[in-house]
């Protein structure tokens, strides 16, 4: 499992990126107009093939999630047992699964569930963790202590284990509507994913807070909300953005794992996790590996695209790696 908790380590690299450049390589930007951090990063990213691979993959999978019809004319729910387990060939380029459904069509339509779950969970954790983290970091004192201890508790439970317990406790019935089913998975993962962003945002705020311009704004009597929104958040946002993108990949993996274990998305939702789960009985792997390979390939490529994107952005924003 790509455990998003691990990314806290990566994130540290971004947060501490403002270290001074050593004397040996001093290049004062005096003469030139100072390019902004992001403009600078864009110039670097543009030149990296990995960025373009990731960007193209992400666009393809996003389009696939929104308009699956563009990629296949077949109906993924139209299954015919007479075709059961037929290998790739003819008009079914990925073959058929055990129920005789077209694997290609089901793989294409499976993108939607994975992408929605990944994106929604990343947004949810970023929002929840970001808000609480900013609050804790800015207010400080006992509020910070209480919130931090609270976050520690959720942080102490590995994401997958926690999500299993939640999903187990509130099982989905086959009649549950699609949005509710998705929401449950998102909520279960966000519940254990937010401390990651919380810690990141909190330390970013703590780092920005003592800066002179923030102190000046305070001294001039700017209202706290304005200080937070216009001075602190923009500076602390970069690491959160990077880590959220990398985590997004991790959430897609965790959802697929939950579905694989039978506590995630139910069979009524077309998803890669369920498809892989049903294809990974040993007998099936032996006889019809195509049932496993194609959804697995798509799943891996999606996760790869998001993690790669996050890393390329992080590297481009990190002056130390230049």
């Amino acid at each position, binding site marked *: 499992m790509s455990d998003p908790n691990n990314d806290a380590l990566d994130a540290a690299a971004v947060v501490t990126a403002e270290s001074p450049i050593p004397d*040996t390589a*001093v*290049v*004062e930007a*005096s003469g*030139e107009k100072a390019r902004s951090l992001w403009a600078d990063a864009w110039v670097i990213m543009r030149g990296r093939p990995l960025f373009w691979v990731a960007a193209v993959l992400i666009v393809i999978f996003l389009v696939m999630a929104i308009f699956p019809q563009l990629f296949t004319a077949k109906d993924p729910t139209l299954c015919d047992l007479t075709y059961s387990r037929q290998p790739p060939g003819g008009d079914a380029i990925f073959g058929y699964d055990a129920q005789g459904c077209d694997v290609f069509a089901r793989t294409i339509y499976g993108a939607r569930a994975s992408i929605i779950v990944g994106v929604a969970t990343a947004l949810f954790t970023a929002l929840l963790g970001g808000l609480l983290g900013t609050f804790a970091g800015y207010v400080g004192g006992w509020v910070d202590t209480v919130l931090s201890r609270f976050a520690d508790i959720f942080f102490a439970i590995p994401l997958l284990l926690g999500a299993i317990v939640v999903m187990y406790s509130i099982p989905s019935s086959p009649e549950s509507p699609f949005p509710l089913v998705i929401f449950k998975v998102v909520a279960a993962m966000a519940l254990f994913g937010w401390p990651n962003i919380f810690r990141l945002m909190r330390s970013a705020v703590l780092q920005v807070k003592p800066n002179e311009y923030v102190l000046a704004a305070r001294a001039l009597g700017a209202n706290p909300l304005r200080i937070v929104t216009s001075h602190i958040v923009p500076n602390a946002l970069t690491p959160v953005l990077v880590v959220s993108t990398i985590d997004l990949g991790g959430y897609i993996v965790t959802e697929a794992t939950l579905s694989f274990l039978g506590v995630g998305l139910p069979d009524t939702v077309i998803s890669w996790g369920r498809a892989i789960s049903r294809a990974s009985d040993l007998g099936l792997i032996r006889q019809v590996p195509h049932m496993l390979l194609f959804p697995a390939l798509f799943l891996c490529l999606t996760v790869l695209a998001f993690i790669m994107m996050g890393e390329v952005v992080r590297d481009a924003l990190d002056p130390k790696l230049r």
Partner: protein
Amino acid sequence: MARYDMPLYDENLAMVESEGRGTIDLEQTAARKPKSSRPPAKNRPYIKGTQVLESGHSWSPVDGRLLTVEDLQVEFRMRDGVAHAINGVGFHLDQRETLAILGESGSGKSVTAQAVMGIIDSPPGFVTEGTVDYCGVDLLRLAEKSRQQVRGAQIAMIFQDALSSLNPVFPVGWQIAEMFRVHKKMNKTDALKQAVRLMERVHIPAAADRVASYPHQFSGGMRQRIMIAMAIALDPAVLIADEPTTALDVTVQAQIMDLLKELQSDSGMGLILITHDLGVVADVADRIAVMYAGRLVETAPVDQLYATPRHPYTIGLLESVPRLDAKLGETLPAIGGLPPNLLAMPDGCPFNPRCRFARPQCSIGDPPPLVQIEPGRAVACPWWDRLEERS
């Protein structure tokens, strides 16, 4: 390859102290403007040492001369272009002598010291030209293995921030003793005894008790003493001190400088003191070399430099030192502007955009060479004897 003499300065050409800069090839001049024509940095030549010394090589100074650096050039090849950190620096150092290299941060003084030590990170840093002659051997041409025998043992160095320069996870005694264990193949116990002796030598109280302590358990001044103990462990002939007191309190600064002077008078080592602080230099140094944008702009004996600074940059530096005899309420003059971007150096004299004596000719052509104006003094300004303030 087109070569041409520098018409602007040819009246002084005969007296160029630092050799090799009399002519300049156009290619190198072009390389200074990376935006217009970026050179294929990877393919540019640089100096690779190959010469191997026999293991028992004995080092003895020729006529008291320890170190002669000539036409040193160092560049950093980076994503945004090639930064020319050092552009033809030359100086020498005798036994018992203290040479101060003075300059702002980014002037290349630290890089010069690291090039002499041979500890520039490569890539991105490359020594492309020059010689570093120590007791008759050009260190730049030495193979790495041979150079390691010189480093620390013959030429030692101490750094500005002793806390980050000492390894945080080893006791200080261990770190000092390492010098003996590596260079002298001494056993652990003997080496530790030597470490205690050195800690006492640099006046660390209760040295025997503190030998097993870690760097973070010492105060800033004590840490710098440990750095010094480590550097003088093998009685080096040359000690390079890179801003040794910048990170310290004023009182501690004086103690450290006194210690360095004391050690020097005992052992007769040559000291290269790198600093941006004119106050530190005045008491200690014999000669001063002022650096700006990777070049020496003025070299002079210390009292002459203070009495009659010749280069506009030196004049500016001296004016910006607070004086006790200044009138109350008088503002301290400062040099306006910023040091130049090493990736895009201005044409002509690199100091001209900030120089209040600048003439139109100063912003054309190549940088003025360092020229000897009297025995022991050199200036890199062709107008040094005719400075007229710009109105």
